[in-house]
């Protein structure tokens, strides 16, 4: 490992500070994207410049080289002038581990850590004495490292005599044990995303869902040792798709929400026995369903078959100009008292932050 990795890590801390400060903007803009199997999050940000006493732009201009007569615009890639002299204009793409982004999200939104169900171990933060420091309490002195430092010093000074091996540690030689915090989540979880792709869900609505899903993934991923995501889209019929298709597909048919619930139930039965898995169902829709009869089927399915197996059922209603939003009212009238159910409205991108707070604020 190159020594600069350490400085890179320090820079990541600075980036974390910026993300924390601008979290709301980042959540609404969708600039952050997962990378490398979702272990890293790419964060576009302006380069950070150290302020110095410099000339401002009012002297605007300088000396150039090349062709052109007086009055001609400058040729070349940049016409903004003072090229390279405007720090902060350069975008830098930093990468943060997904855990760091989740940590910021958790702290800023005050999300409780999730207490997983069942007999699986809790996510544990443990301090382990794995480090060495130059400062510390006497009780944590590390004698072997202290003598090693002492030996190095004496060798450098030229006072080490192999014929008479005597080490006298000085204060600066003393090394101490120090701790590092480790976070070891143990249990597994699966997220099932359900989205209505009927004609009334437009591009912007899907983008809101995509952004919300990114933050949900980010949070849950760091709370569980193992996380799986499944994607179900539906209009009048439901089918399972991959992530990419999930956010791109647009159909035009009618809407039968029950078709999706049935598919979810089958997926859970086949792959995720609730005794071993923490299960999350996130449903995004504009709130239109085909008929009151189908809505009744949905509610029955939810109450009888789905909810007992789930940690959490979150319904996010993405408002569109076509949707009636009736399904939200139906759910509220029927299952809203269940502590496993969270309902939230997402009229625009700015509301994503609040929706995430609603969804994940229960610590389930």
């Amino acid at each position, binding site marked *: 490992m190159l020594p600069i990795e350490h400085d890179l890590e320090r820079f990541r801390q600075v980036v974390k500070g910026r993300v924390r400060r601008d979290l709301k903007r980042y959540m609404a803009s969708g600039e952050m994207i997962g990378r490398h199997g979702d272990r890293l999050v790419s964060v576009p940000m302006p380069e950070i410049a150290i302020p*110095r006493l*410099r000339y401002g732009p009012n*002297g*605007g201009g300088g000396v*150039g080289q090349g062709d052109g007569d*007086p009055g001609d615009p400058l040729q070349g890639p940049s016409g903004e002038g003072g090229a390279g002299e405007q720090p902060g204009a350069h975008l830098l793409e930093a990468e943060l581990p997904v855990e760091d982004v989740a940590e910021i999200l958790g702290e800023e939104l005050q999300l409780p850590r999730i207490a997983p169900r069942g007999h699986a171990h809790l996510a544990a933060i443990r301090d382990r004495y794995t480090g060495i420091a130059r400062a510390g309490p006497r009780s944590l002195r590390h004698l072997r490292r202290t003598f090693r430092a002492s030996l190095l010093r004496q060798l450098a000074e030229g006072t080490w005599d192999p014929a008479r091996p005597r080490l006298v540690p000085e204060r600066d030689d003393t090394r101490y044990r120090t701790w590092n915090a480790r976070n070891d989540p143990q249990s597994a979880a699966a997220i099932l995303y359900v989205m209505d792709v009927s004609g009334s869900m437009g591009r912007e609505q899907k983008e809101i869902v995509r952004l919300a899903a990114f933050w949900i993934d980010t949070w849950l991923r760091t709370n569980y040792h193992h996380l799986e995501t499944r994607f179900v889209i539906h209009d009048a019929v439901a089918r399972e798709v991959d992530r990419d298709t999930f956010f791109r597909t647009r159909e035009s048919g009618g809407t039968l929400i029950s078709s999706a619930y049935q598919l979810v139930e089958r997926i859970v039965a086949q792959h995720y026995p609730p005794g071993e898995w923490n299960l999350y169902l996130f449903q995004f829709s504009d709130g239109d369903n085909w008929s009151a009869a189908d809505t009744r089927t949905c509610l029955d399915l939810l109450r009888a078959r789905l909810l007992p197996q789930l940690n959490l059922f979150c319904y996010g209603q993405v408002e569109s100009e076509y949707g009636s939003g009736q399904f939200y009212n139906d759910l509220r009238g029927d299952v809203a008292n269940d502590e496993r159910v969270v309902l939230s409205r997402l009229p625009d991108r700015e509301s994503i932050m609040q929706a995430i707070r609603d969804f994940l604020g229960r610590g389930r």
Partner: protein
Amino acid sequence: MADGTRRPAGRGLPSPLEDARARIEHLARDSGLDFHDVLFELCDYDEMSMIAAYGGFPTRYPHWRWGMEYLRMQRAHEYGLQRIYELVINNDPVWAYLLDQNAFVDQQLVMAHVYAHADFFKNNAWFARTNRKMLDTMANHAARVRRHIDREGTHAVERWIDLCLSLDNLVDPYGATMSPGPAPAGTTPEPPWDLRDADSRRAPPASRSPSGPLLPTRDVLGFLLARAPLAPWQADVLAMIRDEALYFLPQAQTKIMNEGWASFWHTRLMTGAILDDRGIVDYADHHAATVVTRADQLNPYKIGLEVFRAIEARHGLARTFEARRTHNDVTFLDTFLDEETCARAGLFTWSTDRKSGAAVVDSRGFAEVRARLLFAVSNRGDPCVRVTDDDHGGLGELHLVHTHEGVDVKLDWATEVLANLAHIWGRPVHLRTRVEDHDTLLRHDGTHLVVQGPHPTDAAATP
């Protein structure tokens, strides 16, 4: 141990390269170039980016901005925007790093280039007082900062470094090299007996003289070091940043000359003796890339090369050696840039059109170009600021004056710099300058900026 990082003394070059190197060194010495020994090392791109991010040194004190630079270079490389062929540091022996992916001809060109840089470092008067053991000093700085971090915490030390860095262009460009002044720390390697004597270790660093520079002074860092209320570790870090700033200063003062000299010599050596027919196209390609011009940016390689060629044509080769010994960029251009060279280099002035905001060509007149160019290299293109009073209004407030040369300072940054200065000084600070043709006094107490102008009186500046 990380703070003891010592590179093995040169991994050496593989044999065909080593043969070429020996030949180029011989040719360079025969041509009259005079330099300390040069140690070459081959690096892969990651190592190269790291060393470049560290400003040419393999070991620097820990700081986030190296990480940012490294990341930027990695990205630029990924996108194919940038390639670093070579890095060379002013040290005795000179260290030079070559990118291992360079083609053979490139390596030859780069080595010839490096030997000319080494000659410049050794012989240019502005480098005369630079620390030639900087490689060791940088490693010592790293060890000292790590020690402070262990005692004071990463955040406190890094924040302090940020504060000091924001002032590191406020040093005296002439005092540093022309008068003895405070001796740059580490001109000699830190002697081992220092380590044994526990008292000397706790004493403030040698460059912290009790009185400090006389007022008025441009050496703001030196002044703070002597007079600001600093904890010993803070003074140590500040002294370190100042030493590094002074070390790099001559390189900024001679950018055009230094690159021009190196290009002048790599051209001579390559086309004169080194190249065979097979290499000529690769060479021409690479050389063309180094002297390529972009409309809005000066290419120091190109200008410097043109001027050195003009000197040779007019006064003979001996005069070029003389010029590289005594001049810096300002005096070099002032003395040798003439109308013909200016035209041949295709120089013009440009400015930003007020209406469209686009950059347009202003003039190709020699007088205009020369004036603009000299302004751009004077004081490395930075505003000139002096500390004039350390007890302003009898309140212990610091007073600085900016000598306005027609261009205003960048106000948002100046505000931050003043805030940092107030933080270090511990009392409010003032900067007298001109903003949009009005005398203006900026006063910062560490939290708030008060702007007074036009025509403020001193009495009004104090609450």
